[in-house]
């Protein structure tokens, strides 16, 4: 079975801890994205799975076999590098055929398999060229072709689309997803682009400072972030994170105070168990309903800057004491600069984070 399992792996470079106690399991046919800001340890994690870095501690199991002590060439994995890492001295065909030379199959068989993947990825016309003579998009497809040409235990992608322009990235995202869905292998994709992760992954593992913060389906990490970091990292525009004082909970509503406003917010019932004190309230910019009247349930703010985004409009609003709130409303909703806004957050999209940064959820 094509599976990947990493257990409590840690990587230290001298004193610096690049990855700390990371746990992750990828089932056969599953695509997991490692998502996080630059330097969070996601590429290091991938390189440990590949065997290009040795784990300082922990276990790496691929296809049921412990791999920690095996060099990369013995692990039977396929990897696509950020900068493609094509062999400059070999033709495109030679590049794609390279992994097959170690499988002890005949020349005719190699040629047949190279042609087959070249057809899938539309590389038939450039097989005789050198990597220096093809376009950026073709280089990317060659790198993918070289990975899928044989039958590896798993696929690893390191920022596979970061070098492509927006349009090409969009179409390659779909192509890679289609190719992967036919191969039913465990796949790990490293990316810092959340849209890439949300669209391509079955599950997303969000990393920060060497630790995996949350693993979940694209829906879960978006709708149920486990902590403030995940909440702020996923979603554009970024979630509003409002620091507030939690007073009490009754009838499904939490009474909180922030920026000199007393507001009753519909929140998760688990908030009832919270002690009064400092909390962070997270509300997605699209989760506000703009109402006409100031009530106990509304947050008060004044529209300061209005950015039309096409189908929607992004409003930067300011509370009385200067707190910034981002609100996204449909295009049809006309809002003028300086207008007072009365905002009611949607309950399902309102998250309360305790003082330790963890979400309070039933």
């Amino acid at each position, binding site marked *: 079975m094509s599976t990947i399992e990493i257990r409590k792996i840690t990587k230290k470079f001298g004193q610096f801890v690049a990855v700390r106690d990371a746990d992750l399991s990828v089932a056969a046919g599953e695509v997991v994205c490692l998502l996080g800001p630059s330097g969070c340890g996601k590429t290091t994690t991938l390189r440990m799975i590949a065997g290009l870095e040795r784990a300082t501690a922990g276990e790496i199991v691929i296809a049921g076999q412990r791999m920690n002590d095996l060099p990369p*060439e013995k692990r039977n994995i396929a*990897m696509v590098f950020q*900068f493609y*890492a094509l*062999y*400059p001295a070999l033709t495109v065909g030679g590049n794609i055929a390279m992994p097959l030379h170690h499988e002890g199959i005949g020349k005719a068989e190699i040629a047949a398999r190279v042609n087959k993947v070249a057809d899938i990825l539309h590389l038939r016309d450039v097989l005789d060229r050198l990597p220096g003579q093809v376009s950026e998009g073709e280089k990317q497809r060659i790198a993918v072709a070289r990975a899928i040409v044989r039958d590896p235990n798993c696929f690893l992608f390191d920022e596979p689309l970061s070098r492509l322009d927006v349009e090409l990235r969009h179409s390659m995202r779909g192509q890679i997803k289609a190719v992967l869905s036919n191969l039913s292998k465990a796949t790990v994709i490293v990316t810092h682009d959340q849209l890439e992760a949300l669209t391509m992954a079955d599950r997303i593992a969000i990393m920060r400072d060497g630790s995996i913060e949350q693993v979940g389906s694209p829906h879960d990490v978006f709708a149920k972030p486990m902590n403030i970091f995940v909440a702020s990292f996923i979603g554009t525009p970024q979630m509003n994170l409002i620091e507030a004082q939690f007073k009490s909970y009754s009838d499904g509503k939490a009474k909180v105070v922030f920026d000199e406003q007393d507001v009753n917010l519909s929140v998760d019932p688990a908030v009832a168990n919270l002690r009064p004190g400092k909390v962070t309230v997270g509300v997605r910019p699209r989760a506000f309903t703009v109402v006409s009247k100031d009530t106990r349930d509304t947050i008060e703010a004044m529209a300061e800057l209005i950015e039309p985004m096409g189908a929607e409009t992004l409003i930067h609003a300011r509370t009385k004491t200067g707190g910034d709130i981002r609100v996204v409303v449909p295009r049809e909703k006309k809002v003028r600069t300086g207008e007072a806004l009365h905002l009611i957050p949607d309950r399902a999209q309102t998250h309360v984070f305790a003082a330790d940064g963890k979400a309070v959820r039933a």
Partner: protein
Amino acid sequence: MESGISIWERMGFRRSTGVVEAGWGRTLVVAGVSFIYFLPVLFIIFTAVKPQELALSVPPTLSPTSLFGLIPDQFVFTPTLENFSSVFSRVMTAGGQPEATGFDRFFFNSVVIASVSVLLALVIGTLAAYGFSRFALKGNDTYLFIILTTRMLPAIVVIIPVILMFRAVGLSGSYLGIIMLYTAFNLAFTIWMMKSFFDELSPDVEDAARIDGSSELKVFCKICLPQVIAGLAATFVFGLILTWNEFLFALLLTGPDTRTVPVAMNQAVASGGRGTDWTLLAAIETLFLIPVFLVTFFLQEHLLRGVTFGTVRK
């Protein structure tokens, strides 16, 4: 990368629009400066084909041809190949038979000693450079510096201990001795040169090869080496020129059987008591130029890329 470059194009006769782009003025300036650089070599070659008695004539003869009457007759000489045959066998004493001069042997020595030592240094040095470039050992920079110190002292300073050591172990006058010495001397240069080439390569490509199932040896031979061919060519040519022309070590560490051309040339000039035979000397020099000229000529495609490597981002 482009194939099908004709011999004429290699020699500089490119079907380029160079003159059109640069203009005749600039082209002539460059040609003029190049000619000045080439003048000493041209003079040697002309001297080599002069009759012996014209070698030091005043005014000097300048050209084997009158260039359709452009050059006055007194500057023109009739070319001869006599000097070249004298290189290998000549009349040593008045009225005697021609005797072998041993220069065939000396040329053979020069070729063997220079090529073996430079190739050896290239093999060992490239492996060492790869190691220095890829494997971070504690103190790598210190080792590299120490390696370079062998080139910091002038040869004349090093020569005394080397002579004593060579005498002590019986390496004086042997092929092995001089080849070992030249190899050691070329190593410093080779390691530094090749390391900079390896440093330029993307380590991702090697990682990709490992993942694709290549052993370390295969990664080095199949992936790294093809990318540094320009570097190998440049290093080989520079090393060859240095070794081919080396005089001091060869003078003091080679014996009669292992003598190289520069040393033999010196002795041929000095011996005989008839004063310096300039035309003979020029003939030897002309022959001596040919091997390095050929190697440089055939590797120049790589050489140009080699010496500009790293200065232009790919």
